[in-house]
């Protein structure tokens, strides 16, 4: 029993230990006389006899270095750190004991509660039943769990959303972008930008024959192979799409040169004319291509302008015989395949 308590006082060390398990009793000269059991557990030793400011330092308010500095700080919210755990900021309240018998400093875990409880393995009985730290811990833990659940739901929904988006703009058979995707790109490029582009409208020749004689599975295999060729023969920024059936569209970015567009079309026809083997059977097809470029218009064309013109060019190419390309507004050329 320290000198702190009047013999007739209701309060004793035991009572204080029970109600304030993290308090310190300090002699007028700054010597620590007693610490509550939980604080003792945190300190890892009984610091009775130590000087208070060897045990801890006051972070806020600034400049509190001695007992004399503490005396006027009753009912001020103090932020302190213990010397052996300088990164853990705790909260403290200070009170002078009447009659100049010293003082009491009561510490609480403040916002360091989660770290402190884990670090010093504190348990339910280490807290006063009145201490809300337990409820804070409960909330902290519950929040962590629900946050995890929310995050996992969000991730799931995001993945489903991405998969649905992908499906909505992809042709399931060839894996190429579909008509919807191409329409959106054409609209964006022709409306919002002034970049020169060219469009190749590709329609397979003899495809119906493959389908009719070898079956739909062979037809599908041919379409997949054509998709692969289109993907391989264009630059990274260009975009192929399957528009439906045996029709494909290719969008050539930054391409106003119809000579180059024609060479690309000729190369595509040549590649598509290479025999494709399905289940050991040779499938031979070809392709007709219509071409148009934004450079051919006095004003920026709309997507439907360009699609109508490239369609007409494709029709003329077909009409002139298989395996040809035709540039919109230009007389048909001889077949260019080497």
């Amino acid at each position, binding site marked *: 029993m320290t000198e702190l308590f009047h013999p007739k006082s209701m309060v004793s060390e035991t009572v204080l230990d029970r109600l304030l398990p993290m308090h310190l009793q300090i002699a007028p000269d700054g010597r620590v006389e007693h610490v509550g059991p939980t604080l003792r557990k945190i300190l890892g030793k009984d610091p009775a006899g130590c000087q208070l400011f060897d045990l801890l330092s006051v972070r806020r308010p600034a400049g509190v270095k001695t007992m004399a500095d503490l005396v006027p700080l009753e009912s001020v919210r103090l932020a302190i750190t213990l010397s052996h755990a300088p990164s853990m900021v705790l909260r403290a309240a200070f009170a002078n004991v009447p009659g100049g018998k010293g003082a009491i400093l009561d510490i609480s875990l403040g916002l360091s509660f989660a770290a402190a409880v884990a670090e010093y*393995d504190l348990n339910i009985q280490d807290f006063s039943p009145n201490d809300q730290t337990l409820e804070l*811990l409960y909330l902290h*833990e*519950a929040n*962590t*769990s629900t946050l995890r*659940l929310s995050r996992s*739901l969000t991730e799931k929904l995001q993945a489903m959303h991405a998969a649905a988006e992908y499906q909505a703009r992809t042709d399931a058979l060839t894996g190429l972008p579909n008509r919807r995707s191409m329409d959106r790109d054409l609209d964006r490029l022709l409306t919002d930008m002034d970049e020169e582009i060219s469009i190749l409208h590709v329609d397979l020749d003899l495809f119906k024959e493959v389908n009719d004689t070898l079956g739909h599975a062979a037809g599908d295999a041919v379409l997949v192979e054509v998709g692969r060729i289109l993907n391989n023969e264009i630059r990274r920024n260009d975009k192929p799409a399957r528009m439906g059936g045996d029709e494909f569209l290719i969008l050539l970015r930054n391409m106003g040169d119809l000579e180059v567009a024609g060479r690309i079309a000729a190369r595509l026809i040549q590649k598509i004319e290479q025999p494709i083997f399905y289940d050991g059977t040779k499938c031979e097809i070809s392709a007709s291509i219509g071409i148009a470029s934004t450079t051919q218009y006095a004003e920026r064309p709309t997507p439907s302008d360009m699609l109508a013109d490239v369609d007409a060019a494709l029709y003329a190419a077909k009409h002139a015989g298989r395996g040809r390309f035709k540039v919109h507004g230009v007389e048909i050329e001889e077949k260019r395949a080497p």
Partner: protein
Amino acid sequence: MHGLINRALQSFVEVTYGPRIWAEVVSQADLEFDEFQSMLMYPDDLTVRCFEAATNILHRPPSVFLEDLGTFVVTHEPFNPLRRLLRFGGEDFAEFLHSLEELGDRGRLVMPDLDMPDIRVHQEDGQTYEVRARWKMLGAGPMLLGALRAMADDYGALAFCSLAGVNEGWESLKVTLHLDDHSEGRAFSLGGVSA
């Protein structure tokens, strides 16, 4: 009904009886999805349909099924966060029993839309307790029975729990606590959660 509760029902069926049984429940209950999401709300009707489909498929009496479900949510390892939150209720099983009255408030503190049963605890004498529960659907009693038995083990207490009838919507349990420190119980440290 809150997705957490539906999800618990789903996990219980999947883990205890296998994913094929759950697929059968989904089909018989006519769900339009394969799994419940913990953080979404669902119409109560779906929960009832799943529950009826499950007891029907498994040929289990509803009260037995619910009791097993109650045990499952406390003991199944992935649900450990729930067990830990329950352990915050008290240092020993007796304190925990009393804390059941706060269960609804504690639940709503975390999830305001969580529909928890209303629970009353009455200590009849030194070791006998009457625990009464009322919920928006029948079955809180047997579910609580399973959960309390598991929590008694968790605390290492020797306690006998049994159903004690239904009165005006309140489902009663009788709990006789013989020894609070019968065995080691499961470890619980306040700081034991990984953030």
